[in-house]
């Protein structure tokens, strides 16, 4: 029990100081019927070596992205993270600190959150951003809720290009509060279709760009249509690197941006923890969910930073709080902000171009295979293809040959009538050799 510093003698001395005969005296308030006499039926204390062996054995059963030709995306992306990032986030003063409730001894955390907020605002092209939410999907749900508060309307129109899991996560939460959603049928290039569904009761239109099929769209016209009807435009982005190359959501008229920040500084981690980016217009900040860091001064007039606008939150407002969010993705925001600081605008642009370049090369290789139809016209680093066979079966067959070929759309939305659609993503980590192996093995499996 190497994490427990008290010795038996310490315990005896402390019980004496308390005036208790035994540790059981301190548990007197627990009803007799609810007390456990001994340990539950689980393994006993294990040394570092044992734990390491047990977990390493489990880890060894998984195929890692870095070890095989890898083309999975659909909301989570394999990027290279500079070694500096992981080193810095493991510094004790970052890793083992808490929410910066005492700003005088938490300026490290507060300043990086402030820098993070500025980076996210600039990246998304929005005036303000918060200190992060859990992930992109929960950020989208919070965006819809915020739009209903701002507009006092009750309906969200969701484009057919939005990630099906994002739609599900949003519907689960917003339906609980009585917000209606209209999710349009899945479509590779269906953003404009949302315009026809905007009505006087529409609180917001939700579009994703690049969408789940990879299609990048200028949503300016959708923003105009939404605004003309008094609704807000929520733009969802699942691949943050794309904003280094493409027009920003802010530039296209977004009122709220809900994005996944995993791509910058954070590993795949089998789905989490990730970092939800959330940005909006200045006049809406008091309705914005999540933590915020603000600039102020100390007693000597020195600049400093504090958590602010907590009057929106539940620890003040309780059942009248603007959202149920109680935390942020602190350490993931740190990873994001360090990686972004290392990249700078020059590096981010280059990284984005490399991603695009690799995806175009992958597209070209797959387009040359007889029977493979490329569905996505304009894309960033991900695109959809239609295969002459069931995509999930093809992916499983390729996995058996150590190629992770992408995400079958049916994995996200079974029954959508797209069982033959495969989502393929490439990033700067994709080697030319990986592309060749993918093309060759796909040809073989398709019998082309």
């Amino acid at each position, binding site marked *: 029990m190497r994490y427990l510093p008290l010795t038996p003698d310490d315990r005896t001395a402390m019980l004496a100081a308390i005036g208790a005969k035994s540790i059981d005296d301190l548990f007197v308030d627990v009803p007799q019927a609810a007390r456990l006499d001994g340990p539950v039926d*689980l393994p006993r204390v294990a040394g570092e070596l044992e734990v390491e062996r047990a977990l*390493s054995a489990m880890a060894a059963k998984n195929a890692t992205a870095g070890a095989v030709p890898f083309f999975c995306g659909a909301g989570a992306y394999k990027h290279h993270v500079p070694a500096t990032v992981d080193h810095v986030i493991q510094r*004790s003063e970052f890793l083992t600190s808490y929410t910066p409730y005492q700003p005088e*001894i938490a300026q490290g955390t507060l300043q990086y959150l402030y820098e993070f907020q500025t980076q996210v605002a600039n990246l998304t092209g929005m005036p303000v951003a918060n200190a992060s939410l*859990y992930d992109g999907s929960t950020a989208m749900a919070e965006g819809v809720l915020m739009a209903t508060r701002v507009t006092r309307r009750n309906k969200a129109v969701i484009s057919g290009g939005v990630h099906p899991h994002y739609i599900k996560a949003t519907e689960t939460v917003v*339906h609980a509060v009585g917000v209606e959603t209209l999710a349009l049928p899945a479509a590779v290039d269906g953003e404009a279709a949302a315009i026809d569904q905007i009505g006087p009761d529409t609180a917001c239109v939700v579009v994703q760009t690049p969408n789940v099929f990879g299609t990048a769209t200028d949503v300016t016209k959708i923003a105009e249509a939404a605004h003309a009807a008094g609704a807000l435009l929520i733009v969802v982005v699942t691949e943050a690197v794309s904003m280094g190359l493409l027009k920003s959501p802010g530039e296209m008229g977004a009122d709220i941006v809900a994005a996944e920040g995993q791509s910058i500084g954070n590993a795949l981690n089998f789905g989490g923890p990730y970092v939800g980016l959330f940005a909006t217009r200045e006049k809406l900040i008091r309705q914005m969910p999540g933590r915020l860091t603000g600039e102020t001064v100390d007693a000597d007039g020195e600049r400093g930073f504090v958590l602010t606008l907590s009057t929106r939150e539940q620890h003040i407002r309780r059942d009248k709080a603007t959202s*149920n969010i109680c935390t942020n993705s602190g350490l993931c925001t740190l990873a994001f902000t360090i990686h972004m600081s290392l990249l700078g605008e020059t590096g981010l642009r280059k990284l984005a171009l490399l991603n695009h370049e690799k995806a175009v090369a992958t597209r070209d290789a797959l387009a040359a295979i007889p029977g493979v139809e490329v569905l996505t016209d304009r894309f960033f680093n991900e695109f959809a293809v239609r295969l002459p066979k069931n995509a999930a079966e093809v992916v499983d067959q390729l996995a058996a040959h150590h190629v992770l070929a992408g995400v079958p759309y049916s994995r996200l939305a079974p029954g959508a009538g797209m069982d033959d659609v495969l989502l393929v993503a490439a990033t700067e980590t994709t080697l030319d050799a990986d592309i060749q192996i993918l093309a060759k093995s796909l040809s073989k499996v398709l019998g082309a």
Partner: protein
Amino acid sequence: MSTMNTVGRPTAPNPVQTKPATLTGGRGLLQNEALIFEGDGWGKTGVDLPEPKTDGSDLGDLLRKDPIGLPGLSEPEAMRHYVRLSQKNHAIDLAIYPLGSCTMKHNPRLNEKMARLPGFSDIHPLQPISTVQGALELMDTLAHWLKTLTGMPAVALSPKAGAHGELCGLMAIRAAHEASGQHEKRRKVLVPTSAHGTNPATAAFVGYSVVEVAQTEDGRVDVADLASKLGDDVAAIMVTNPNTCGLFERDILEISRLTHEAGAYFYCDGANFNAIVGRVRPGDLGVDAMHINLHKTFSTPHGGGGPGAGPVVLSEALAPFAPAPWVVHDDGGYRLIEREEDEAEQAFGRLCAFQGQMGMYTRALSYMMSHGADGLRQVAEDAVLNANYIKARLSDLMSAAFPDGPCMHEALFDDEWLKGTDITTLDFAKAMIDEGFHPMTMYFPLVVHGAMLIEPTETESKAELDRFIEAMRALAGAAKAGDVDRFKGAPFHAPLKRLDETRAARSPVLRWTAPEGSNKAA
């Protein structure tokens, strides 16, 4: 004349009498650190990347044209920037972090090492199931530990934080009432006045009206008041146990019996599970749903505020309503049920895009396995012992809010003992900073005036507790002796003096913008 320090080494002669301000604003090793936007990083990058072969022109009018406004740092500059920032933070690795209700304990680095095994960190949430069998095994093993420790039959792993877990639990309760046709009439949730703000916020969020339950003089749920409010219009009660006053709800069995008799469900806020883990199973108390903050009980690091993880254990009655995804196990190996339609039509949906906080699952399981069933029982015992030791050693100088009987894992004081000193709980907390300690939780729970909630956790040694206690005693003595100057305006020795939080809220400045006339981007 030179003097000797405590280890017998000479120290500087003639200590300096006055303390002139430095020219740069830095203080010795503690340097003022400009924002990254204020340096010369425009156009700079600290990452070497190959030259792209494309300019992206095939994307035409979709391309961004204007500058984004992101300065870059070379690698050494980045290292220095963040290391300097880190030096302005308190952390559990520096000293006791006695934030009550937040549970700051040692974060073992083995957990970090395990979470970073490529087999866990470098796998995609949508890879073929055949290629992630070990990850699913880990989730299944974690679920087994959580179910066994809580005595509950089911668990939903995906909630991403404690409040998210509350949401999950209440949505399962709502789904159960909908399934039995009782949702229309059961529209109330009973919440004690001492609850975390997240409890009423969650209940309201899920569409319930919140009814407060009174508290007894000894800091517990008033059972008579609860009973009088329970009826067939109540969907659930939400009780934190041990509660936020640091006390075990003695009448918990009666509370759950009354709740179930009224046809309502018992939601337990499990934020304080570390006080009873291995000694009490919430399932034996009649709990229907409880979230477990993995970061609190099982030591996943807080990282300046997150990420957390809030799996929810569920009773037999609520298990069918758990959200997707979940892991199942049969002869063919592990499978992931990703759509509620697939195998359980009653599931209430999905809470986030993927499987939840895998990185936290790994850390929590490492911690659990390291302790084992016997060690986890010791965790609860030591957490409770440490809190009671602090309470016992400070109660003659400070006023314990509930002096009679033991506390659980946290010791609660009020500000009665500061009466007449002109010193507030806030002043006292800020003076602790000067002594090198992170302040305790202030002004929470709200039911106690000027509350000071101290939670040492089980990973503090007796020596560190004694060091903390002696400092608290010295400060309390100074307060009572009228040494007001030590408190008003404190901290004096922190990187910054007291910050103006009102100003920040009144005219919020949430991002850096280029000063007027500057040619800096954005």
